[in-house]
């Protein structure tokens, strides 16, 4: 079982609110990722990081931002949430040279 934790598990907020989704891993992995997933659908990469102070945008355009100040922590922030942001957000990590990912259990976000 991977040691990667996401909080909150569920979040319902109103339009225009600023939110931060938390992700932490205790495996010492340098690489971390954020994916967006609608129920039962494929995963889309929105952000990733190769290590501290490294952040990159993924394939799917996103209005969110990320930061990587510590190896174990990779929070995702939405400055002004909109209903179109309603989705599940999955955080993952991997070791260098490892082609597969360890996932957290996700945050299910609903913006009303």
């Amino acid at each position, binding site marked *: 079982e991977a040691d990667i934790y996401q909080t909150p598990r569920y979040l319902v907020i109103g339009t225009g609110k600023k939110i931060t989704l938390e992700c932490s891993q205790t495996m010492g992995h340098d*690489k971390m*990722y954020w994916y967006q997933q609608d129920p*039962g659908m*494929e995963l889309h990469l929105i952000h990733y990081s190769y290590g501290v102070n490294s952040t990159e945008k993924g394939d799917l355009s996103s209005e969110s931002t990320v930061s990587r100040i510590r190896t174990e922590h990779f929070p995702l922030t939405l400055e002004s949430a909109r209903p179109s942001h309603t989705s599940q957000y999955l955080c993952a990590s991997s070791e260098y040279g*490892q*082609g597969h990912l360890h996932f957290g259990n996700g945050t299910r976000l609903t913006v009303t």
Partner: protein
Amino acid sequence: GESVGLHLPTLSVQEGDNSIINCAYSNSASDYFIWYKQESGKGPQFIIDIRSNMDKRQGQRVTVLLNKTVKHLSLQIAATQPGDSAVYFCAENMIGGGADGLTFGKGTHLIIQP
């Protein structure tokens, strides 16, 4: 664009039967393939992987088959159990490409009939 896809969005099998979940990929340069299992309310969990220099790889109750000629990948689950009920995703990558190069398919929901 290139993508990884699964043939069926839903597969229903009887408990105890074998399940076969299929996936077609289109990127000929991909040489590393992974199957993930995602249970309801959880993140995807790694099941098994295979490199392109292999045609078959077996794990505990699972077997992955790779046919590079037709760019087809399958996951076989032996003696399906209720705990196998989940959405299964295939993903492709290139060896050494890093997990940011992973491309996921749409997923097949495996339903186990009692």
